[in-house]
C-alpha cells in the first residue's frame, strides 16, 4: 500500500454526557476511498468532522499529511489540504456560483482573479454545470448545489476530500448526478472519506467500508463483504434496516 495520509489514534469526544467517540483509530492511505456507515448518532459524522477539526476532540491524536492537528496554525494548514462536502451543501447564499468557487482561492490561496476564475470554470465543466456560473445557489436544484459545493472544495486542490452524507438531502433522481462526480474523483485517485449509505457507490469506488456504532468502529471490511456477509451481529442488524 502507498503512504499513510490520515492517522487517527484513539480519538475520544463527548457532547455533554454523551460519548460521541470512544477511542476510534483509523488509518487512511493515499488514493484510498473509505466509506463509513452506521446508525444516526453512531459518531460517524463527528469522526469525519474531527479530521479537519470542525469538531474538537477530547483526547487522542490525528495527523493529516504529516501535520498533527494541535495548533491553530496547523489546523488551518490541514484545512487547506482537506476539502469537505456537507449534507446541506452550505453554498454561500449571497454569492453567485462562480464567486462561491473563487472566494477561497483568492483569499486563502492568493490566486489572481483571472486564475481563480479559470479554475472555477474548468471545475464547473468537470461537474457538468458550466452554464450555471452566474446563478445564485437558490436558483439551483439540490444536486446542482451539491456539485457546486464539490467544485468549490476541489478548487483548493485538496489532497483529501471528506463527504458528510452528501446525498442524504437530495431527491432520488439527483443522487446519481452527485455520485457520478464522486466516482470520477475516486477514479482519478483522490483520497476520500465518505459518510454515506450509498451501497452502489461503495461497491464501485471504495476498497474499505467501516461500520460505526456508539462511537466505536464495529467492523471493517471490503464493501462487498460488509454489505453481504458481515461478521458482527450489530452490522447485520443495522444492514437489515438499511437494505431493502
Amino acid at each position, binding site marked *: 500500500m502507498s503512504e499513510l495520509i490520515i492517522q487517527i489514534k484513539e480519538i475520544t469526544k463527548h457532547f455533554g454526557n454523551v460519548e460521541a467517540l470512544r477511542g476510534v483509530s483509523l488509518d487512511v492511505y493515499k488514493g484510498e476511498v473509505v466509506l463509513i456507515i452506521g446508525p444516526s448518532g453512531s459518531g460517524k459524522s463527528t469522526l469525519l468532522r474531527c479530521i479537519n477539526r470542525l469538531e474538537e476532540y477530547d483526547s487522542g491524536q490525528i495527523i493529516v499529511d504529516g501535520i498533527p492537528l494541535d495548533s491553530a496554525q496547523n489546523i*488551518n494548514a490541514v*484545512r487547506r489540504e482537506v476539502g469537505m462536502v456537507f449534507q446541506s451543501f452550505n453554498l454561500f447564499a449571497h454569492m453567485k456560483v462562480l464567486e462561491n468557487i473563487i472566494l477561497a482561492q483568492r483569499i486563502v490561496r492568493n490566486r489572481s482573479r483571472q486564475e481563480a476564475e479559470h479554475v472555477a470554470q474548468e471545475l464547473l465543466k468537470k461537474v457538468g454545470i458550466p452554464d450555471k456560473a452566474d446563478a445564485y445557489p*437558490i436558483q439551483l436544484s439540490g444536486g446542482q448545489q451539491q456539485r457546486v459545493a464539490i467544485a468549490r472544495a476541489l478548487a483548493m486542490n485538496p489532497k483529501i476530500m471528506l463527504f458528510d452524507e452528501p446525498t442524504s438531502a437530495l431527491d432520488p433522481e439527483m443522487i446519481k448526478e452527485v455520485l457520478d462526480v464522486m466516482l470520477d474523483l475516486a477514479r482519478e485517485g483522490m483520497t476520500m472519506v465518505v459518510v454515506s449509505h450509498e451501497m452502489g457507490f461503495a461497491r464501485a469506488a471504495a476498497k474499505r467500508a467501516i461500520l460505526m456504532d456508539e462511537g466505536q468502529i464495529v467492523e471493517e471490511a471490503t464493501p462487498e463483504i460488509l454489505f453481504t456477509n458481515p461478521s458482527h451481529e450489530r452490522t447485520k442488524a443495522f444492514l437489515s434496516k438499511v437494505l431493502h
Partner: protein
Amino acid sequence: MNKQPLTSAAQKELAKIPGAEPQARMDPWWWLVALVAGLVVALVVFRPDPYRRILIFVADGIVVTILVTVVSFIFVLIFGLFGGLGRLSRNRIIYGFFTLYVEIIRGIPLLVQLIWWYYAFPIILQMIGLDITLIIPREFFAVSMAIMGLAICYGAYMSEIYRAGIQSIPKGQMEAARSLGMTSFQAMRYVVLPQAFRIILPPVGNEFIAMLKDSSLVSAVAVADLTRRGREFMAMSFLPLQTWIMVALLYLVMTLFAARIVGFIEKKTKFER
C-alpha cells in the same frame, strides 16, 4: 440590454437576482413624502409670515440635526459591530465586557445619558487632571458629547441587532468557509457578515429613524438642533402653534424620506436563501 419581451418564467428567474428586476416599481409611499414636503413648501410660499421666517430661522438647526444623526450613526454601526461580535465571543472577558456595556446602557434613559456626558463627564476628566478643551475645542464640546452619548447608547441596542443577525446565519456557512481554510476573521468578513447585514437592514433602518427623532433630546444639552432652534423661535416670536407645526413637519419629511431610502436599499440588496 435585451429588448425582447421576457417570458414570465424568465421574469421570475430574473426577479430572484438582486437588482435584476426588469422595472422596480416605484414605492407608493414616496407620495406621502412628496405630500408632506409639498405641505411645507405650500406653507412657506402661501403663508410666508410666519412660516418662511420659521424655516429660515431653524434652517441651521436642520443641518445640525442631520449632522448629529449621521455622524452618530456611523459610530453606532461600528460600536454595534464590535458589541455584537463581543457578545458572541467565546472569550469570557470580552463577552463580559460587552454584555455589561449593553446591560448598563439599556437601563438608563437616553436623556439622562446625554446630560451625564455633558455635565458629569467633564468633572470626572477634571478630577483626573485632563483638560478636555485641549482635545475638543470649546465650541464643539456640546455637539461632541451629544454625538458620543447618542452613539454609545444606540450602539448598545445595535449590538443586539448585529448579534441576532449573525446568529441567524446558519452555522454551516461558517463551517464551509472554515473548511476551505479561511480564518475565522475571513469567514466573518466575506461570508457571514455580508449575509447578516442584509438580514439586519430593516431593524438597522428603524434604528436610524428612531435616532433621527431621539436626536431632538440633544437640544437639552446646549446643541442648537432643530428642536432647540424651534424653542428659541417660539420664545422670540410667541407663535407656539405655527412654530411647532413647522418643526413637526420638518421632522416628518426627514423621517419619511429616510424610511423610503431604507426601503430602497432593502430592495436592492435582497437575496433569497
